[in-house]
């Protein structure tokens, strides 16, 4: 009977577009060029992008390569993968991919040594350039097995190009994504560009034409191409657009016109602005200098250089060394210091004193003096003898002072006190009690101390061998065996000898460091197994205060000067003078005696974690322990430590110091925006994540409901799922209240072949009576629901399909 059944009206015009009532449009026709030409043009874009990227990279590093082989392989592969879409069925395309992957495996097996050698050769070349550019102490060199570099690099380039072609080709034919294309190709160029290597212009022209083509087709559409596509498609929610699928002619003309436009741009721009002149417009290269340490560390140490072994904000490290890659101060107040300034020297607040060095750590010096009781041990440790000397000095430089220190946010396990403090009994008791917390946040301590305003010239004027060390623990002269060799060499290199006085040695070492070892907050972590001091002195050759202080201590000890490592807070007089006066406090209550500054007011200094510091104490004959500063001045402006800040500063005219590249007009402050942007992006990602998790949970629940052992409930869940999908697509579905109405709607709208009466009866029976013992009925209705679900999805718009995912 079915053979003679007349087609229904809607069947006759099933594939037609109804332009008006009773008026149908069949398959519109246009001469849009052969599919092969279309595929060829698309292959050209992929070819341009891949050749531009790989050719640009190789040419930038002057890496020799047989471009005839590379271009031929890229072109053939681009064509091959593109023409897979010119086949008339999906299966042929899939077979084409499978065939190629088989071939790929064979080729990679046959040419693996060539490919490896080529790849290693390229890596070696890049690292070699990096070594010069980043001034790295040494980089790993990979062994190249085959000496014919031109051939091996060409083969390696072909293999890398293959992967790029496959991925780009899929994107070209499905999403034509500007973002992914850029992400997949341009980052490769970052490496030469960062190291000031310029790719050959011809590859840049290829790359740029490729980008423009991707952009234009993404913006205009008509890039999805399959051989089985009709020439026109009806689109739009209300099907109001008859739109062509693709056209080789316009594609071809666009590629030509874009190529012409860009070639003209390149030639004209090159003639007007010469590359060397362009570079000269940038008077400073602060952004590179800000990031070069991090990148250099990465090249040297790999990803481990990015990870800190303990918190990397500034502040006390308690003698732990080498675990921080980048120090990032938070600039929040750690201490509040109220005192009267008395001289121009920086104020040091002792927190931690390191005695013995080993395993990249200074151990607490307390207890090294081997004194019989706590009182005398603590007295020595806390410079009680020096304090007594100053306290009892009745000379004209005698001074007595008080300092109030409030712990706002500093580590609580340390006391922070000025040099030559007289401790009260309560504090000593606390320390003796070995409590973890010595200085609670929010608490204030007031110290009586005796500042040494003037240092006599004879102090430190002895050679180390003449210093009376009888009063000093031997620990302060120890140099671990594994550092000995390096330290000896350093002493020679610096030019130290036994005839020099203490001060001369200190000065020499300080000058040496200042001239040869730059200060940076981003030195990178010390590699696993390396010694902190040795690594700093011989390889990394850059660092922050802990590096300089630790190394200096060992050098001084090696030279016979008792020395120890100290951590705490230090602030300059400049910071003091820019602070507020402490109102209502009398200077006479805080200071009496000689002052190099005359009558100074009581100052209230806010000390942040950026003031956390490490320095050295040396023992000088005739007095005792005194501080020496070994850290060279920083060229880094801490406000611009992060990349965005630096970039923001640059955009605000950082490069314009000499009338150079002026971007003041833009008035961009990315530094201030970056935080907000990151927070916003973070929030958005969080919302998206929550959303996705919710959908997944819902899906899992739904799946469990639909596959539960109780068949009746499982079937109800399936029916309810179909209804939910229908609600997404049809606003008025809810007006169908009965099962019969709902099923009739499904049948009519989604062309489902079913007997309404029978299915209605089954569903009602299942809904209202617990009757679902029949496996066959269950399977039938499940199958029916599956078909309806498929038809709903098939007939839904993209927007509705997205909404359905949430169901």
């Amino acid at each position: 009977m079915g053979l003679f059944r007349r087609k229904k009206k809607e069947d006759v015009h099933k594939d037609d577009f109804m332009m008006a009532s009773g008026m149908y449009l069949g398959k519109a026709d246009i001469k849009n060029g052969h599919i092969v030409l279309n595929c060829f043009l698309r292959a050209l874009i992929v070819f341009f992008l891949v050749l531009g990227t790989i050719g640009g990279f190789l040419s930038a590093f002057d890496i020799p390569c047989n471009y005839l082989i590379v271009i031929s392989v890229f072109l053939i592969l681009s064509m091959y993968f593109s023409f897979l879409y010119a086949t008339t069925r999906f299966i042929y395309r899939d077979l084409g991919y499978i065939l190629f992957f088989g071939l790929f495996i064979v080729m990679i097996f046959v040419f693996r040594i060539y490919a490896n050698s080529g790849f290693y050769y390229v890596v070696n070349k890049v690292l070699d350039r990096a070594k010069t550019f980043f001034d790295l102490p040494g980089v790993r060199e990979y062994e190249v097995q085959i000496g014919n570099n031109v051939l091996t690099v060409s083969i390696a380039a072909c293999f890398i190009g293959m992967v790029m072609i496959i991925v780009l080709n899929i994107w070209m034919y499905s999403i034509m994504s500007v973002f992914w294309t850029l992400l997949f190709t341009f980052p490769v160029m970052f490496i030469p560009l960062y190291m000031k290597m310029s790719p050959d212009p011809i590859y840049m022209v290829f790359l740029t034409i490729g980008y423009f083509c991707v952009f234009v087709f993404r913006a205009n559409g008509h890039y999805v191409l399959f051989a089985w596509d009709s020439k026109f498609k009806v689109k739009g929610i209300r099907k109001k657009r008859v739109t062509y699928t693709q056209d080789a002619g316009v594609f071809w003309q666009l590629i030509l016109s874009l190529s012409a436009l860009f070639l003209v741009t390149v030639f004209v721009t090159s003639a007007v602005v010469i590359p060397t002149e362009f570079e000269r417009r940038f008077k400073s290269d602060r952004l590179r200098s800000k990031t070069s340490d991090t990148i250099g560390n990465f090249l040297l140490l790999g990803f481990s250089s990015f990870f800190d072994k303990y918190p990397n904000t500034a502040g006390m490290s308690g003698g732990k060394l080498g675990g921080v890659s980048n120090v990032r101060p938070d600039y929040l107040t750690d201490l509040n210091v109220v005192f009267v300034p008395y001289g121009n020297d920086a104020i040091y607040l002792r927190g931690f004193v390191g005695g013995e060095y080993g395993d990249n750590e200074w151990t607490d010096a307390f207890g090294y003096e081997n004194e019989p009781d706590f009182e005398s041990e603590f007295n020595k440790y806390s410079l009680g003898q020096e304090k007594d000397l100053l306290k009892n000095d009745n000379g004209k430089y005698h001074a007595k002072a008080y300092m109030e220190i409030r712990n706002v946010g500093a580590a609580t396990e340390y006391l922070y006190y000025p040099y030559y403090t007289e401790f009260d009994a309560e504090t000593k008791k606390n320390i003796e009690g070995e409590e973890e917390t010595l200085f609670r946040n929010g608490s204030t301590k007031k110290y009586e101390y005796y500042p040494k305003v003037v240092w006599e010239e004879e102090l430190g004027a002895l050679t180390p061998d003449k210093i009376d060390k009888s009063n000093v623990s031997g620990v302060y002269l120890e140099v671990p065996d594994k550092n000995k060799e390096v330290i000896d060499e350093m002493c020679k290199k610096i030019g130290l000898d036994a005839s020099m006085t203490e001060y001369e040695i200190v000065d020499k070492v300080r000058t040496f460091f200042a001239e040869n070892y730059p200060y940076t907050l981003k030195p990178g972590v010390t590699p696993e197994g390396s010694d902190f001091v040795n690594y700093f002195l011989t390889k990394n050759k850059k660092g922050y205060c802990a590096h300089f202080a630790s190394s200096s201590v060992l050098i001084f000890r090696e030279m016979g000067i008792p020395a120890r490592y100290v951590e705490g807070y230090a602030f300059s007089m400049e910071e003091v003078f820019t602070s507020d006066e402490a109102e209502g406090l009398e200077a006479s209550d805080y200071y009496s005696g000689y002052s190099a500054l005359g009558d100074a007011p009581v100052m209230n200094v806010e000390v942040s974690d950026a003031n956390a510091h490490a320095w050295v104490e040396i023992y000088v004959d005739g007095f005792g322990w005194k501080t020496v500063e070994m850290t060279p001045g920083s060229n880094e402006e801490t406000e611009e430590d992060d990349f965005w800040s630096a970039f923001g500063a640059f955009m605000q005219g950082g490069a314009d110091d000499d009338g150079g590249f002026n971007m003041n007009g833009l008035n961009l402050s990315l530094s201030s925006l970056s935080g907000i942007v990151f927070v916003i992006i973070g929030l958005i990602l969080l919302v998206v994540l929550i959303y996705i998790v919710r959908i997944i949970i819902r899906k899992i629940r739904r799946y469990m409901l639909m596959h539960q052992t109780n068949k009746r409930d499982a079937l109800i869940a399936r029916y309810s799922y179909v209804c939910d999908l229908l609600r997404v697509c049809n606003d008025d579905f809810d007006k169908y209240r009965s099962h019969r109405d709902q099923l009739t709607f499904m049948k009519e709208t989604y062309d489902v072949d079913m007997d309404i009466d029978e299915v209605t009866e089954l569903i009602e029976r299942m809904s209202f009576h617990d009757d679902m013992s029949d496996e066959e009925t269950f399977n039938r209705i499940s199958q029916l629901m599956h078909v309806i679900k498929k038809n709903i999805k098939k007939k839904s718009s993209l927007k509705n399909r997205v909404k359905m995912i949430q169901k």
Partner: protein
Amino acid sequence: MKKIRNLIRYIIVIILDIFMMVVFHSYLNFILLVGLLLFPLYSIIGVYQARAHAGISISAPLEPMVRGEEFLVNIHVLNDSFFPLVNVNVNLNVSNSFYRFTGEHVLNIPFRAKHKTKVAYPITMDNCGRFYCEVKTLSFVDILGIIELEKKVDACTQCLVIPTSDEMNAEAGQIYFKGVSEAVESKDKGFDYSDISGIREYIPGDKLQNIHWKLSAKGDDLMVKERVNVSAMQLNVLISLANNEDMCVEGVLELADGIMKAFVKQNMPFTVYYYSVNRGELVGEHVINDIERRQLIEMLLYDVCHDESIDVEDMFIAKHQGLGSYLYIGQNDGSADDGNSIVGTRNTVAVLKHSGHA
């Protein structure tokens, strides 16, 4: 929305390029920046040029097409500029003027430089009528996809779609003779002769033989002679073009066409009356051959069907009371008997009726 998205995407690319240029001091990015700034200029100039040099023509078959038969409407869009565009939108309005069915949609085509894009539109009409297609505007999207320009054009085409019908020679002949024997002949006018009662402007569907060629040659418009046409031996046929939800007028046209074909084949002259919505009155046309029959069908289709509130029978009886029998073709009200009627599709019927004597 898409345009804004494209613009934002482009701005992001420019910002990224500036960023890289600043970070790397990269000359490559500088050239790219120049390209990125020039490209919108090229794109905008391109779209303006393409618009200025664009033209469109549409054509449909001159001969009437049969209902359900596919015919091609050719849309030719010319780009005489050197700038290609990926998206040009042809805003099409289509209609069936007989039913007053209208629809509009956008035809999206590529726009190659120095090229005429030809699109063949295969159209099928399920209903008779006059297919009318017009393009009032073309819109041009630049290759960056950020601006869209419109151009006013005036291109249109039309094609008549006529009913398909079987000739009903036997039934029609029988009815004809019954109807004619009872017809009242005019005593004032001669057999097969018509008097000219006036001159008027040509209306599509008018017979060619009625064109007043001499008068037409003097002016710009075609003029036709209006005739008072009364045949000595003829049947009066009243066609009701009243339509309903079931599209019964399709059945009426099909039935009328079949009967008229049979009359013409058997050399039976007849006069057809119908209510013209365009003229607002009952119109009568005398038909003696196949050319006139086709012209009459075309005249009907150039007109507009009306709703059921207009009763053509009443009008006819009021106007032509003395004409005696007439063949009514219209919706079947159930009053027809087997001997005097022919049943058509969609519940339509041709039935012999009496207008009554004066």
